[in-house]
C-alpha cells in the first residue's frame, strides 16, 4: 500500500508522524518552510527535565526520516480536495496528490517586544529564552558578559489578558528552571532569580527539577510578576516586581533579564488552514475534532493535526500525538 500522506511541517511532530507512517507502509511527504528539519527543538541545547542534549533527539528523529521525501524551504501555496483526495501546490510549483493531510505546523514564539514594559528591544540586556538557549549552544552572546545577577520572567505572553493570551504555555516554567540551573553551571557565582505566577511542574521529573534548582543551584524562586524594567546609568537593568508570598514590592538591579516567551499559533499556515476549513479554538490555535478521543482529527475529513498547532505542548506530548496521528491516518486510509 503506497498512499501519499502530505505532512505540513518538519518539526518534531511532522518528523515523528512521517517516521511512523513510513513504518506502516504509507508514503509520507514532508513540506517544511525553513531550510532544515527539526523545528524549534533543533534550536535548543538541552532538554528538561534531565538536561538531555537536544541534538541527540533531533539526530535520532532525522535518521528515522532520511528516506522520507522532504521539501525544504518550501510552503504549500494552495490545496484543494475532491473525491480522489487532496491536491496541493507547492511554492516551487510542484504538485502533490495525497490521500490525507497532517498539519504539524507547530507554534510561533511570542514576540517579546509586545510586552513593552519588559523593555525587550529597548534595553540591551533583556533577552528571550530562545536567545539564551542559543548562548548555551554556541557560548556566544555579547549581552552575557560574566553576569553577577540574572533574572527570569515566566509567563511572557501567556496567562495574560493584556496580550489576549489567557492560556498557559505549559513548558515555560520547566524551561526557566532548566535554564536557571544551566546559567548557574556557567556562572556559579551569579545570583539567579526566577519570577513566577505559579510553578506548573506537571510532568515526570519536573518537580524534582524544581527542588534541584533550589537545593543544588541556589536559584531563588520569587512568586510575583515583574511589572516594569528600566535601565540605569551603567546599563544595568532595574526591575520592579511584587513578592506575593512576602506581600511586598521589590526592586532589583540585574545584569541580564531572560523572558520566558510563550507559544502562539503559527500564523504562516492560516491561508492553507482556511482553505481546508479548519477553524481556530478560543486560544487561537487550530481546533481539533474534540479534546478527548478526537484530538488528532479535525472538522475536515482526511485532515489531521499533531503537536503544538492545537495548543502548547511539551516534546513528549508532541511525540505522543505524532505517533497517535500516524495510527489515525493509517486507520483512515484502510477504512476508505
Amino acid at each position, binding site marked *: 500500500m503506497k498512499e501519499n500522506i502530505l505532512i505540513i511541517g518538519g518539526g518534531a511532530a511532522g518528523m515523528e508522524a512521517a517516521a511512523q507512517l513510513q513504518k506502516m507502509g504509507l508514503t509520507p511527504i514532508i513540506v517544511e518552510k525553513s531550510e532544515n528539519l527539526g523545528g524549534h527543538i533543533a534550536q535548543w541545547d538541552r532538554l528538561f527535565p534531565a538536561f538531555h542534549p537536544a541534538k541527540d533527539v533531533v539526530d535520532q528523529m532525522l535518521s528515522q526520516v532520511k528516506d522520507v521525501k522532504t521539501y525544504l524551504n518550501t510552503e504549500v501555496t494552495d490545496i484543494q480536495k475532491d473525491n480522489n483526495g487532496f491536491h496541493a501546490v507547492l511554492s516551487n510549483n510542484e504538485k502533490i496528490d495525497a490521500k490525507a493531510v497532517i498539519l504539524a505546523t507547530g507554534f510561533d514564539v511570542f514576540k517579546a*517586544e509586545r510586552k*513593552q514594559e519588559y523593555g*525587550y528591544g529597548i*534595553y540591551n540586556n533583556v533577552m528571550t529564552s530562545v536567545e539564551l538557549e542559543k548562548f548555551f549552544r554556541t557560548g556566544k552572546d555579547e549581552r552575557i558578559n560574566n553576569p553577577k545577577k540574572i533574572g527570569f520572567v515566566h509567563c511572557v505572553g501567556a496567562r495574560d489578558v493584556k496580550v489576549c493570551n489567557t492560556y498557559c504555555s505549559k513548558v515555560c516554567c520547566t524551561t526557566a528552571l532548566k535554564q536557571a540551573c544551566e546559567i548557574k553551571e556557567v556562572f556559579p557565582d551569579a545570583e539567579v532569580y526566577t519570577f513566577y505566577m505559579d510553578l506548573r511542574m506537571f510532568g515526570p521529573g519536573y518537580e524534582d527539577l524544581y527542588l534541584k534548582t533550589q537545593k543544588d543551584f541556589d536559584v531563588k524562586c520569587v512568586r510575583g510578576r515583574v511589572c516594569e524594567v*528600566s*535601565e*540605569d546609568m551603567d546599563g544595568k537593568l*532595574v526591575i520592579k516586581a511584587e513578592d506575593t508570598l512576602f506581600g511586598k514590592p521589590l526592586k532589583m538591579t540585574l545584569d541580564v533579564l531572560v523572558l520566558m516567551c510563550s507559544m502562539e499559533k503559527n500564523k504562516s499556515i492560516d491561508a492553507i488552514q482556511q482553505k481546508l476549513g479548519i477553524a481556530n479554538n478560543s486560544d487561537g490555535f487550530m481546533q481539533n475534532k474534540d479534546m478527548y478521543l478526537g484530538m488528532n482529527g479535525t472538522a475536515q475529513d482526511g485532515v489531521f493535526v499533531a503537536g503544538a498547532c492545537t495548543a502548547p505542548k511539551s516534546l513528549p506530548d508532541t511525540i505522543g500525538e505524532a505517533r497517535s496521528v500516524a495510527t489515525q491516518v493509517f486507520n483512515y486510509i484502510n477504512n476508505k
Partner: protein
Amino acid sequence: MIVEGKQKIWADYQKDIPDDHYFYVRSCIRQAFWPGSEVTFLDITRNKLGKDFYENPYHTTCGGIAYHSDTIPQETAMTIIARQFALMKESGYENYVCSCITSFGCYTETLETWHEYPELEAKIRQYLWDSCKKEFAKPKYLAHASDIIYKFRFDIAKQMKFPLVNVKTGKPLKVVEHIGCHYSKMFPSKGFGGAEYPHVLVGMIEAWGGEVVDYPERRHCCGFGFRQYFVQGNRGYSESNTHKKFESMEPYEPDLIITNCPGCPYFLDRWQYVIAEQTGKTYGKNGYGIPALTYEEVAGLVMGYDPWDLGLQMHQVAIEPLLEKMGIPYDPKKKYQGVNGKDLGQPMCPSCIKSV
C-alpha cells in the same frame, strides 16, 4: 538603550489628528497652579500658528477629580462630560481638545464606555436632557492639548529663539520628561508613543534641541495620585513617590523637567521645597532645585515669551538658573509684578532651597 526599539514603538503609536478648528476646554486646577500655561497655549495656537481654537465661557470642570476621588459616581461624571460635548455642538465644533490629562483620561474612558455600552450613553443623554435640556454630539476627534503642541512642534521650532541648549557650553539641556498617568496608561493607543515610552514630550524636547533623560523611575507616579494627596493622612506617600523620582534622576543631573499634567509639575515642584526643608537636600546645582515646567511654559520659553508673562514666578523652584543657561533675558524686578506693574508681593524665602 536601543533607540531603534523606541522608534519602532513610536511609529506604532501615532495619531492622525486634525490640523485646525478645535473646541478648547480648560483644566480646573491648572489655572490656579500655572495660570500662564493655558493662556500661552491659546496664544501660540491662535496667534503664532494661526489656528482656530474656540473657548466657550460656559464650560466647567470635567468632574475628573471628584470621580477619581470616589466622591461622585461615574454617571454623574459622564453627565458633566455630556454637557461639555453639548457646548461643543452648540458652538459648531467637532474636534475637542482638553488642557488636563485627567480630563483626557475621563473623556477617553467615557467615549470608550459608551462605545461598549450604548445603553449607558442613552441613559446619560436622558440625564443631560432632564438636568440641562441639552443634547450632545460626541466629538469626531478628541485630543489632549499636548498632542497639539506635539503635532506643531516643528512649526514652533521654526519660530524658536532660545533652543533647549546651554549657551555657555553649547550642549543640549538634559531634560526629564514626565507624562501624566491618565494620558496613555489606561488607553495606550490614545497617546503618542503608547503607554511605556510615550513620545509626546520626547518629541518636543528633541525638536527644540534638548536631550532626553531616561532614568530608572521615569514611569513612576509624580506623587499626586489623587488619594495619596487628597487624603491628608496619605500625603507622606505622595512625597515619598516624588522623593523616589528625584533620587533616581539625580545622577543624570537634569536641567529641566517637562510635564503634560496639571498635578505633576505641581508636586514635582512643591515637594522639592518640602524635601529640602526636611532633609536639607536639593537636586539642582548650588542649592537650587530642578525646574518642573509645563509643556506650554517650555514652548513659550523657546519661542521667546517673557518668563514672567508665562507665570514662571509661580514655581517654587527658582527658574533663573535655567533662564541663564538658555540665555533668556529677564528682569528680576518684574518677577512679582502683575499686570500694569501691580506689586503682587513676594513669597517668604525658604531656608534650604534657593529661591532666586
